[in-house]
Structure formats: structure tokens, C-alpha cells
């Protein structure tokens, strides 16, 4: 008897699993033809190239404190690129969030998609997960870029722990901004609005901004400061709050939870015309 009763439930859960995988695969197919994937690779490559040009131009000057033994090779690399790194990550989050829902907005795929038996909330969460994965790839490639610069410039043995932290901590700190941008990009059809909000982000991280440190725009600067082990990413006169690693992670986790839930609920209750 109990076996009979549980059978439909088993079928239901199997189809739910299939649909989750289906959603993930569907997003991948829709993404393949767009600029998102090249951008994920080109972004970090661009920042690394910038570092290469910088060392070619002003290498002697930049290497002086390292050669004198005052700072580590790692600090030389991250001091130069840290700020551009987080700005690229922040702007990249806005771009990925916009591009990942662009197809749905432009061809009114929302209507067709939700005419099918798929969960709206799940669709939203899958999109966020995809965007987060793409940003993670970018962030990991950034660390590869740092490592490449350090090997090329002979900046001493590679600091594996620092490189790993530079890959994951700014990424975690960028996720709330990604969640916020995805919320805006999904809610508003005209992508000029969320993207305009996105290009404001670097202004907050550029120094002397007095917004609380837990807010998405500031959190990335805090993370980079923690990664660099000092005020590398700050601008002139910036008062840094010095968030620790665990503070960055918990602030980020809480913001993600709130923003993704909000976005999923909003998409679930929206009238699709």
C-alpha cells in the first residue's frame, strides 16, 4: 500500500529533477550563441594584458620596492591590478546579468517559457546559478593572470594561498551585486536601466564613499582589501572598515539569500504579457 502511494511522488520528484537539469541545459543552449561566453574569457584576459602593458611601461619603477625587499612580489602585482580587477568584476556582473535575460526579453520568450510546465522560481535560480558560475570562471582566470604576470616578471615563488583567495573572495563579494543586477535586469525590459545602474557601481568603490561596508558595491572593495592584505583597492582618503574574510562571506551570503529570493518571488508573481 505504502509503495503504491509513494510511486506518484517518486515520479513527480524524478520529473522535477529532469526539469531542473532541463532548465540548466536550456540556458546553456540559449547562452552559446551570445557574447556572454567570449566575454567571460576576454574580461580577465584584458585585465591581464593591461597588467602586462603596465609592467612594460613602468616596470622598473614598480619593481623598485620589491627589489629592495620592502614588499612581496604578490603585493606588486595586486597593488597595480586590484582596483581594475574589482571594477571589471562589478561591471562584468552587470553585463552577465543583463545578457543572460536578454534573449527572453527580446523575443518574448518569457511568455513561451512559462506557458510550459516549468517553475518560474526555479528558472530564476538557475539563471542566477549560471551567471554566478560564469563570474567564477572569470574570477579564476584572473588569478591565472596574476600567476602568469608573477612568473613572467620573476616576482618570486607563487603564493598559492593568496592566488586562491584572490580568485574566490572577490567573487563571493561580487555575488550580491550580481543578484541585484539580475533582479533589475529581469524586472525591467529596457536593459538601459539595469546597465545604467551597473555603471554607477565603480563610483562607490573609488574612494571616499561613505556607504556602509556590507552594501554590494562596497563589499567588493572590502574583499579586495582583505585579499591584498592592506589598503590596495582604496582611493585617496578612503576610510576602510577592514572587513575580515568571514565578515565578507556572511554579509555576501545574507544579501544573496534576500536578493535571489526576492527576484524569484517577483518573477513568479509577475504578469507576463
Amino acid at each position, binding site marked *: 500500500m505504502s509503495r503504491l502511494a509513494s510511486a506518484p511522488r517518486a515520479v513527480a520528484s524524478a520529473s522535477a529533477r529532469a526539469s531542473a537539469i532541463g532548465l540548466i541545459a536550456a540556458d546553456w543552449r540559449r547562452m552559446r550563441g*551570445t*557574447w556572454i561566453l567570449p*566575454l567571460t574569457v*576576454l*574580461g580577465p584576459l*584584458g*585585465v591581464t594584458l*593591461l597588467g602586462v*602593458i*603596465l609592467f612594460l*611601461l*613602468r616596470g622598473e619603477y614598480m619593481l623598485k620596492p620589491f627589489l629592495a625587499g620592502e614588499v612581496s612580489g604578490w603585493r606588486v602585482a595586486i597593488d597595480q591590478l586590484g*582596483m*581594475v580587477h574589482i*571594477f*571589471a568584476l562589478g*561591471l*562584468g556582473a552587470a*553585463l552577465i546579468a*543583463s*545578457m543572460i535575460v*536578454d534573449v527572453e526579453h*527580446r523575443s518574448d520568450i518569457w511568455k513561451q517559457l512559462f506557458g510550459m510546465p516549468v517553475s518560474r522560481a526555479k528558472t530564476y535560480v538557475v539563471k542566477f546559478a549560471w551567471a554566478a558560475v560564469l563570474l567564477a570562471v572569470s574570477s579564476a582566470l584572473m588569478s591565472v593572470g596574476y600567476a602568469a604576470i608573477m612568473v613572467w616578471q620573476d616576482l618570486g615563488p607563487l603564493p598559492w594561498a593568496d592566488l586562491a583567495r584572490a580568485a574566490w573572495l572577490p567573487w563571493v563579494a561580487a555575488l550580491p551585486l550580481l543578484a541585484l543586477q539580475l533582479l533589475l535586469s529581469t524586472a525591467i525590459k*529596457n*536593459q*538601459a*536601466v539595469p*546597465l*545604467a545602474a551597473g*555603471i*554607477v557601481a*565603480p*563610483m*562607490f568603490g*573609488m*574612494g*571616499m*564613499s*561613505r556607504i556602509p561596508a556590507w552594501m554590494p558595491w562596497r563589499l567588493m572593495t572590502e574583499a579586495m582589501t582583505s585579499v591584498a592584505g592592506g589598503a590596495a583597492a582604496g*582611493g*585617496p*582618503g578612503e576610510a576602510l572598515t577592514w572587513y575580515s574574510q568571514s565578515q565578507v562571506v556572511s554579509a555576501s551570503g545574507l544579501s544573496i539569500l534576500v536578493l535571489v529570493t526576492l527576484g524569484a518571488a517577483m518573477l513568479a508573481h509577475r504578469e507576463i504579457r
Partner: protein
Amino acid sequence: MLRMLKVELMKMQWWLVGLLAIGGPALAVLLGVNPGAETGAEAWKLAYGYATVRYSWLFYPLLAGVFAALVCRPEHVGGGWKQLLALPVSRTTVYGAKLVTLAGILAVTNLAFGAVFVAAGMVSGLGAGVPWSVIGMSMLAGWVAVLPLAAVQLWVSSRWKSFGAALALNVCLTLPAIFAAQSHEFGPWYPWAQPLLAMSPFASDQTGSTALNVAPMTLWVVIVGGFVVSLIGGLVTFARADVRQ
């Protein structure tokens, strides 16, 4: 041309343009307001220097891209290009009207930046000695310097449907500006660094130039030359484009 311009102006989403053109510069200024600091002409100049870095390195060039995409949006949505170009207007006129609209909006944005800065400076107590000529020249020079960038963005935005793709290109070209601006060899040559360089209140001290804050070579080759090249490129592309929707 004038009628075409009028049509363009009618099509703009003014609430959004207004929000961006005034809200953005206001944010750039207000994030840096630092009351209780020193007063006088030097303090004004220093505060203006910080405000321009926040505003003209990333925000202003990127905003030019957003506005370029916004100017093309009515046509990208719902097959507008086909309808517009089926009318007895030349494609050059259509493109020209869009570029003039774009340049006008960018001028207003820069004026808003100057106005908000002066107002914020007065309220936060920077005192007397507003460097009007420095701020005025900076606003004009910044606007001229952003025009080639705007022309490039209009070029791609008139062809690409996706806001994201056009902005991605813009971001990739604008991020290196801060490094280019710091370099004496590359700074004068990199177009995306010019708004930042030209708007700095210390620009004329460095370049020794009184004409739009940049060296004459930069002005004519990089800014004017860049503008002409991207304008012609955009026009040719637009005139030959196969419009399907």
C-alpha cells in the same frame, strides 16, 4: 534634418535620460562631498579634481554608450528600423539626427555635473573663489573629448541589438583609461583616456595648453581625427546595412 531631429527628440524616453543625465553626475559629486575641509580656490580645485576622476574615468564614457544604445532603442524594438528607413528620408539624415541628439544629451550631462558640483561645493562650505573658468573649460573639454567615444558607440549600437554587447565593448575600452592617463607616452594617444585627462582641473598646467586642456596634437589627431573616422565608419556601415527588421 531639423524635422528628423525633432522626431528623434520625440522618441527619446526623457524620464530615463533625465534620471541618468542628472542622477549620475549628482551621485559622482555627492559621494565625494567632504564638509569641514579647507576653503578657498585651491580647495575648490582639489575637490573638483576628485569629483572629475570619479565622474570622467568610467561613468561619463560608459554613459555615452548607454545613451547611444538608448538613441537606437526605438528602432531595435519591434522592427523600427525597417519602418523608419522605408520613409523618404536618407539614412545619412537619420544617422546624423541620432548623433546630434546623443551629443546634446551628453552636453546636458556635463552641464549637470558642473552645476551639481558648484552647488554641492557651496552647500558643504568650500567658501568663496569658485574657479568658474577652470570648471567651464573642463566641462567643454570633457564634452568634446567624449564625442569620438560616443560616435564609436553609435556605430556599434546602430547595428547591435544587444545593449549588453555594446556596453561590454565600451567597458573593455574604458577600463584601461586610468593606466593610459598615468602614462606620459600613451596618455595623449588613447582616446578613452581623453575625457579623464581633459576634465582634470590641473590639465592645462600639465599640457601647457589653453585649447580645450589637451595638447594640440591630441586634440586634432586623437579627438577630431577619431571622431571623423568613427563618424564615417558608422555612416558607411549604416548606409550599407541590410535592414531586415
